[in-house]
């Protein structure tokens, strides 16, 4: 197992290097740079831009230099733990991400937990009681949740809350708590706001999980080992939990690693619509305004987390499923 992990870690090095190059190239691809974005904004206000000022900025940001030099400067900073400056916010990239990361983690983890808590029992139920009224109900709702885009649910929810209840949805805190220090009341306020993004983000995920679990369990319960176990008198409930369910869990374990990148870039559109102070909208804004180091760093971190997450998943899978472990040998 240890050699397996070590080998995987070694392979990660060239992968990460390739990712960093691609991430940097991606943000260089669109025409123009941050300064053109800035000029565009100023010109839209009718402002004439001071050419000397612009030349100074180009120099300071190193935008006039060849791409490989810019890349090297960026990478050497990252090796020292410095992701560079965000042009737009005028502060370091790390502090911008650090500000938004805790709430992103809270949101992603609580959404994931809610999704699992709802999806597992329902998925199992609709597999074991296939074609029962409950199964049909769960399936119908599940398909609806899968088919309707999340941001549309968010918009619909906002509209209904505004017109029917006169209540404005959006953000994670009421105005009076936004800048308040952490307290029990603030946590309560967060909880009162958090359910909306959880519902919006959770619907599609829940629906998808239900379908996958149902299909997996259905596949398993028809296999001869289940019949054999049942023939030996293993109680039905214990039977389902002990064998088919455990096998059916494999797809979840192999995707659990994807939670890591989702912490940072999950649900950009929904977070924008619902006005959540998380990292997703930060990435979107940075890409739009060609805020090079901010966008590049987020993409790079997300990529690294994806690679690490995949490794974690593989390790977990190998731990949980002897077939994977033994097959590997």
């Amino acid at each position, binding site marked *: 197992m240890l050699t397996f992990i070590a080998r995987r870690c070694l392979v990660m090095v060239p992968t990460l290097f390739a990712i960093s190059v691609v991430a940097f190239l991606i943000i260089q691809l669109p025409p*123009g740079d941050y300064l053109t974005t800035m000029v*565009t904004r100023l010109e839209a206000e009718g402002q004439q831009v001071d050419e000397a000022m612009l*030349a100074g900025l180009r120099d300071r940001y190193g935008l006039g230099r060849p791409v490989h030099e810019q890349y090297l400067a960026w990478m050497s900073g990252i090796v020292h733990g410095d992701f560079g400056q965000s042009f*737009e916010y005028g502060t370091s990239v790390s502090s911008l991400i650090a500000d938004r990361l805790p709430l992103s983690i809270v949101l992603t983890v609580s959404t994931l937990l809610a999704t699992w808590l709802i999806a597992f029992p329902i998925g199992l139920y609709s597999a074991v009681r296939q074609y029962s009224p409950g199964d049909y109900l769960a399936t119908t709702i599940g398909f609806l949740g899968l088919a309707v885009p999340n941001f549309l649910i968010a918009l619909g929810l906002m509209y209904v809350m505004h017109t029917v209840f006169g209540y404005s949805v959006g953000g994670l805190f009421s105005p009076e708590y936004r800048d308040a220090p952490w307290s029990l009341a603030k946590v309560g306020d967060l909880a009162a706001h958090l359910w909306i993004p959880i519902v919006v983000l959770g619907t599609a995920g829940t629906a998808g999980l239900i379908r996958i679990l149902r299909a997996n369990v259905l596949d398993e319960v028809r296999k001869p080992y289940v019949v054999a176990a049942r023939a030996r008198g293993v109680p039905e409930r214990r039977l389902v939990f002990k064998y088919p369910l455990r096998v059916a869990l494999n797809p979840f374990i192999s995707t659990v690693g994807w939670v890591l990148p989702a912490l940072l870039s999950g649900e950009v559109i929904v977070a924008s619509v619902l006005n959540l*102070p998380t990292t997703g909208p930060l990435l979107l804004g940075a890409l739009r*305004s060609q805020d090079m180091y901010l966008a590049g760093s987020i993409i790079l971190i997300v990529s690294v987390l994806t690679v690490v997450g995949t490794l974690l998943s593989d390790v977990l899978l190998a731990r949980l499923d002897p077939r994977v472990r033994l097959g590997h040998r």
Partner: protein
Amino acid sequence: MDANLSRRQLLRAGGALALVAAVPACSSSGSGAGGPTPASATNGPEAPSLKALVDAGQLPPVADRLPANPLVVEPVDRIGPYGGTWRNGMVGAQPFRLDYSVAYENLVRWNRDWTEIIPNVAESFEASADVTQFTFVLREGLKWSDGQPFTADDIVFAYDDLVNNPDVMPEGLGMFRSGDAMATLEKVDDRTVRFTFAAPYALFLDAIANQPHNVLTRLPKHYLQQYHLALNPDADAAAQANDFSGWAEALQHAIGGEALWADVNLPRLHAWVPTTPISEASQMTFERNPFYWKVDPEGSQLPYLDGIEFGIVQDEQVLLLNTVQGEIDMIERVVTTTANKPVLAADRETGGYDFFDLIPDKINTCTILLNQNCKDEVKRAVFQNRDFRIGLSHAINRQEIIDAVFARQGEPWQPAALPDSPVYDEEFGRQYTEYDVDLARQHLDAAGLSETDGDGRRLGPDGSPIGIRILAPSDQKPELTDAMQLIKTHWAEVGVELSIQSEASEHRYEILDANDQEAHVWDGDGGLNPVTTPQYFMPSGGADNAFGVLWDRWYVSDGTDPAGLEPPVHVVEQRELYDQLRVEPDADRRVELMRQVLAISREQFHLIGVSTPLTGYGVVKNTFHNMLGETYFAANFPYPGVANPEQFFIQG
């Protein structure tokens, strides 16, 4: 001008009337039991929150905080009570919104009518007769927001140590350059500084007043010297401790103005100081500056409002929703688009807000700029033919465009100065706007394009059909593309083929930068104040105003730039007139020179327009007072800062 009173003059007269009317209203305020009573009599010299701090010994008394000669600000409507928070909002980080709203505290500023430059941070100012020397006297006892004195040394530091220091700003700043050299600065005494230019610079004061935040009054020496290597040997370490790569970058960050909103500790002269940086995810808040140096006519220290709250949302529609719900007290940009107006108008009652008018400094709704220096030489020759441009202008059915695209507002108009402008010229605006297809055909024939092919398309000198590819923005000002779609059919009628190339801003500016466009469309600035905004009336450098950039290159390099193109006599004449204007000390004479520049523009008719620009609007809550009912929306008139936000108040 004599027969019809200009709108500006009217405004000025109206302002004077309002002032007169305000005086009795203030003096009788105490007894008003009916409506909302101005709390003037009970205001006292300072805000209650500051009074508490003084009583607790945490703040010096108000008399010590104010300068000896504080600036007295006349309220727009009436004197207000202390308190309240101005709720505003931005989409993502929009530092320019803060610049315009909070930071307009330069040495000198425009008055609210945009007719005169008046003292602000400077108590008085003086220009020498030949406009090469400018002297500014600062207010005695003026203090930064941290209580440290603001003296001539701060200006010397800002200019000599930062702006004019090649180690920090390799190219200096264009606004301090005249006669191809940077100005020199002299400290006369602790309160007096003098700029001296190598060549006369008549528009220096305008250049300061035009900026949303000028560098001279926002770079505190006592705070920024920690980053200056000549003043602090450990400057690099200090800069690196704050996430900068080195000392020069930290200072550039401050000079560029980014530091204003990123560094809450930076002392400033503004009415409100930020308590959170702009990098905050959900909102940016401001609180009152206890050392603010302006008072109302009764001597109460401004601002009236306790603070500002800029909500940071991630989507424009969210901000629109907030505005409709009445959660925004006053907003001047972003949501106030033509497309949003019906939405906002519908909820005025329930949201408890109303509109104010913005007169834009635009020359037109839709200005077509045929590239006079087009890279295709056949087309260049055609575009340079005045008859060709006149023919195209007569071929446009302007009323149809006004009805279909501009909600029936405005009238046919060429890109020219507007009636509110001192250089208004009705003939310029109205020439060739008549819709007359026959006349258009005559002019196009006269331009030597009488031959047509089987499809009725006019043939150019090289025997191929004349087609114009026009560059239009795809990500902003959608009405331009709508108008061009109609003009496409109008021009097809007279045998000129138009194709529209829609590009997002970044790529659009690359094309314009490289002079690769045949023609492009924009609205254009300078309708009210061409004297300081001349770039659409004569070929000059720039992007959106580009129609003869190679001529400009030739002119500014004295013909030495190989990429330049020798301009015709009339262009040289225009540029020389404007060069005279730049050094002309007398304002009336400047206007006269601008008239001469414009007379050439009228004669040459380079740009084709559609109609007079539409009036813009802003949204203000009914409980939010002292905002101007009508003001200007212009690059050189930093709105809403010019409306004196420090005298805004909330009541009712």
